[in-house]
């Protein structure tokens, strides 16, 4: 087993990689040149004749009824075409009430608010009107002129207060509200050594570099939508249903996204309102949200309060593991943040109790944000493990290895692959963990206290299903079509590598079409599922195509020559192979395949895993926290493209650093208003906050997954906050149990 990496100082491979050896090469992303030269069109950049520009007007109360809405001044601004409110907006089919249990289904909407068709306000920031104008300048000038009056209703907006009203969560399709094994409370009370702690995390916001945007164009009852979405097919079906047209009449295009992170997974108000506006004015509408609008009208991560208790024998064997979490939803939607996921699957504790509790509040409904559940849960559990290690006077890695389970601690399934110990061993060696004096506050460099921390990274695998069509043409080129999403991870590049090798064709001859709902149905991009999901179908389609080509080659006597020779010899311009299709049979086939894959996968416990290591420096006088070094050692199966994979893992670590150091939603507890609505008040990390990030992986294939791919992205975020908090404890002797770790907490 060799540890592999891609540091960024070696050049990527260009498109001319040897035939049959594309997979595993650090091929430069194929859209890279177009992106840096501005040739790529993001959703907001599609132009249509007669285009109008729209701007949202947002409610400024958390809960209430609109009693008056005066649009006269706004409408009078030169260039304004229309101002739509609940009084005059086109009526469309009302949304269904969101049921958390059904979340992954056709209800892809982030909220169940009937935008612009209701006088009810459910959160401060909810869009309640839209200005449509000839220019964006006119729309921007007019929007603030809309005057609104409200009847206020009592609003639950302070999580610190409301959490005492939380009730046990029922759970959803993939995650149950409670999981028990034995009697964890009794075991905790009887344990030789124990910790019983409270960990809290704030709300967070995605702030992808590209704000949400929609360009909507009607042509009769056909709708084309360029939308910043991670779910083009689900969005297409949702819009068709709401607007009462056949699904085949709604085309959703999202060829390029400037980051998603889960914030573009659901349908948010702008998408529906843009389509509504386009219908109302009979012209194409571009609704590009401002940064402020993104932070007030699209969801973020919920805050959380967690009890975490660990009981152990004196030699470090866990006898009890308890996690009791409270998170929130909005009154108009939201989801269960599965914070006890790591607790259920990482350690072989004899007795376990994990419980999720929810409280509905009158805030923006929460949504998925990179590693939902595990990002928070890994901070909680992995910090607690570190606290327990200190109570036991045991090395934190040794404590984890001692509790390495043989099968999944919840349900006993076998691991399809689990190289957690190897990740820690290789990681510790590469990082120099042995150089650490375990005593807190023992390492110093001038005015800087130095510390090292480690934590487990963990993200479960979810495989969805993809329809794929592959066409070989007689000129030797190959076209792969599938409606998957490119959020900046290099998705198309990787599938081209896979298809090239599967067909024995040069990588540069493979073209990939994606990001369009007219293409075969691809998976939603989330849960780090896309590469493996699409690869499963690409490989199947390529195998089918190879069979057809071989048969043709035998008939034409061109066996042994390059694949296109058979087509030329037969006078056949192209050959197709598909997995799934648009037909009813194809749709049933897709469902069948999903069920079959899902059930097969359910026999195993599968996850991306790793070990995070960091070194921090804390200023002894000011509490300023700097991260000086990072290593993530990952068990993520076989890596198709080391360059794009390393970038994804580095980026994920950066997300975790932001979570630990500086990010927090500032929702004013007096009125529920999101005050952290801009990049000046929501503190994403800057370049100067980020150390060199070393990422490496074991590159062992998971034999139950296509090409051994486990999938990554989100795993890189998990364990980061805990590694930092643990390093801070090591440096200062101060244990921080609330994020972000700001300097005042270290004084």
């Amino acid at each position, binding site marked *: 087993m060799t540890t592999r990496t891609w540091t960024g100082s070696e050049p990527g491979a260009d498109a001319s990689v040897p035939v049959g050896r594309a997979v595993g090469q650090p091929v430069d992303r194929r859209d890279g040149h177009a992106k840096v030269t501005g040739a790529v069109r993001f959703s907001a950049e599609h132009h249509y004749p007669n285009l109008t520009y729209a701007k949202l007007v947002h409610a400024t109360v958390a809960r209430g009824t609109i009693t008056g809405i005066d649009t006269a001044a706004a409408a009078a601004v030169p260039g304004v075409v229309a101002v739509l409110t609940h009084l005059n907006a086109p009526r469309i089919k009302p949304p269904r009430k969101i049921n958390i249990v059904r979340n992954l289904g056709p209800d892809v909407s982030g909220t169940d608010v009937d935008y612009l068709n209701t006088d009810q306000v459910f959160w401060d920031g909810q869009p309640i009107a839209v200005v449509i104008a000839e220019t964006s300048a006119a729309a*921007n000038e007019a929007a603030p002129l809309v005057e609104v009056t409200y009847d206020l209703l009592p609003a639950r907006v302070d999580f610190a207060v409301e959490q005492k009203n939380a009730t046990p969560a029922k759970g959803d399709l993939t995650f149950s509200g409670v999981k028990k094994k034995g009697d964890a409370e009794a075991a905790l009370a009887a344990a030789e050594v124990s910790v019983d702690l409270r960990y809290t995390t704030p709300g967070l916001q995605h702030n992808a570099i590209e704000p949400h945007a929609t360009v909507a164009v009607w042509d009769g009852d056909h709708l084309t939508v360029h939308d910043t979405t991670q779910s083009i097919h689900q969005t297409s079906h949702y819009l068709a249903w709401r607007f009462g047209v056949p699904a085949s009449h709604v085309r959703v295009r999202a060829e390029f996204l400037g980051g998603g992170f889960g914030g573009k997974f659901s349908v948010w108000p702008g998408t529906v309102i843009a389509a509504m506006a386009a219908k109302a004015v009979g012209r194409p509408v571009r609704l590009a949200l401002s940064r402020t609008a993104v932070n007030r009208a699209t969801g973020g991560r919920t805050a959380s309060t967690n009890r975490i208790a660990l009981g152990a024998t004196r030699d470090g064997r866990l006898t009890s593991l308890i996690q009791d979490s409270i998170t929130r939803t909005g009154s108009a939607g939201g989801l269960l943040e599965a914070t006890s996921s790591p607790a259920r699957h990482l350690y072989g504790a004899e007795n376990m109790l994990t419980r999720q509790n929810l409280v509905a509040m009158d805030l923006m409904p929460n949504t998925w944000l990179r590693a939902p559940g595990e990002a928070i849960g890994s901070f909680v559990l992995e910090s607690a493990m570190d606290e327990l290690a200190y109570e036991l006077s045991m090395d934190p890695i040794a404590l984890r290895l001692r509790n390495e389970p043989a099968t999944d601690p919840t349900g006993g399934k076998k691991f399809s692959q689990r190289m957690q110990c190897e990740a820690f061993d290789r990681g510790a060696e590469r990082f120099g963990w042995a150089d650490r004096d375990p005593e807190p506050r023992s390492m110093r460099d001038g005015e800087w206290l130095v510390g090292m921390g480690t934590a487990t990274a963990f993200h479960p695998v979810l495989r969805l299903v993809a329809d794929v069509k592959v066409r070989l043409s007689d000129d030797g080129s190959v076209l792969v079509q599938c409606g998957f999403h490119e959020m900046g991870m290099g998705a198309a590049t990787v599938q081209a590598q896979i298809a090239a090798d599967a067909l024995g064709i040069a990588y540069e001859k493979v073209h990939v079409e994606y990001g369009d709902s007219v293409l075969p149905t691809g998976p939603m991009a989330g849960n780090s599922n896309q590469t493996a999901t699409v690869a499963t179908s690409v490989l199947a389609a390529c195998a089918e195509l190879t069979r057809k080509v071989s048969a043709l080659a035998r008939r034409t006597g061109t066996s042994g020559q390059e694949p296109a020779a058979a087509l030329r010899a037969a006078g056949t311009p192209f050959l197709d192979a598909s997995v799934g299709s648009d037909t009813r049979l194809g749709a049933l086939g897709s469902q069948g395949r999903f069920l079959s894959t899902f059930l097969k996968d359910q026999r195993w416990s599968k996850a991306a895993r790793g070990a995070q290591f960091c070194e921090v420096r804390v200023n002894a006088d000011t509490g*300023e926290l700097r991260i000086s070094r990072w290593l993530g050692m990952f068990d993520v199966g076989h890596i198709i493209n080391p360059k794009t994979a390393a970038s994804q893992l580095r980026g994920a670590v950066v997300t975790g650093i932001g979570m630990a150091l*500086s990010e927090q939603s500032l929702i*004013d507890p007096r009125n529920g208003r999101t005050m952290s609505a801009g990049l000046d008040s929501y503190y994403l990390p*800057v370049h100067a906050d980020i150390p060199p990030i070393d990422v490496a992986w074991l590159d062992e294939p998971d034999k139950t997954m296509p090409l051994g791919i486990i999938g990554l992205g989100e795993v890189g975020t998990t364990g980061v906050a805990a590694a930092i908090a643990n390093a801070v404890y090591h440096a200062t002797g101060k244990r921080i149990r609330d994020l972000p770790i700001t*300097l005042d907490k270290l004084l």
Partner: protein
Amino acid sequence: MKSFSYLSAPDTVTALRTIADSENVKFLAGGTNLVDLMREGIEEPATLVDITRLPLTGIEELPDGTLRVGALVSNSRLAADPLIRTRYPVLAKAILLGASAQLRNMATVGGNLLQRTRCMYFYDEASACNKRVPGSGCDAIGGFSRGSAVLGTSEHCIAAHPSDMAVALVLLDAVVEVESVRGIRRVPVADFHRLPGDTPHIETVLAPDELITAVELPPVPVAAHSRYRKVRDRASYAFALVSVAAALAVKDGVVTDIRLALGGVATKP
């Protein structure tokens, strides 16, 4: 943003006459704060007078050792100037720890002095803010006030002044030269900004038609040993939680001269 007229002043006389004669005129130099405020609807000038063609870009040494810095000198140019770096290193450092390289290239000395608070309630049209709408209240009091002032506050306003450069200028006893159709006057920088009191919307002693033309730095020997330390919630591109400009002279183990100025904690530098 509300529609506005734009004209580019060819000389100082035209600029001063235009602002004296017309209503609701503002000068535009780098625009790194003003344009943001216009986008947010906080400033709504009817006319912008672009002053970037005015001859206010020199850094010259006067006979008595004073350094005269033209109001249009960019922040980055000022921070890079060799005389500034040797005689007033605190000023160069303070500028470099603020904003970003792109912003420092565009921002001017005059504009930096006039920049307005970044208080999130000042920026939010739905929040009560006496600076933005006199008499409407102050939602920062009792709200998210981590970056707000603790010195020089009143019950009407706790907004911190955001400029790092101005803190260094206060340490150095700089003098601000301003001009209008009525003539020239000189204001010590320590007196240039006002405390909020019960009129937080009036931030400086400038008359509406006055133009900053220069900032003069007197000789300050102790400033040759000066530093600027800025503490904030991330390593760069953030306003100070606390900053300190300090100049110190030590002879034979005894402090013979010391100057301190604070930033991030007060309503004026």
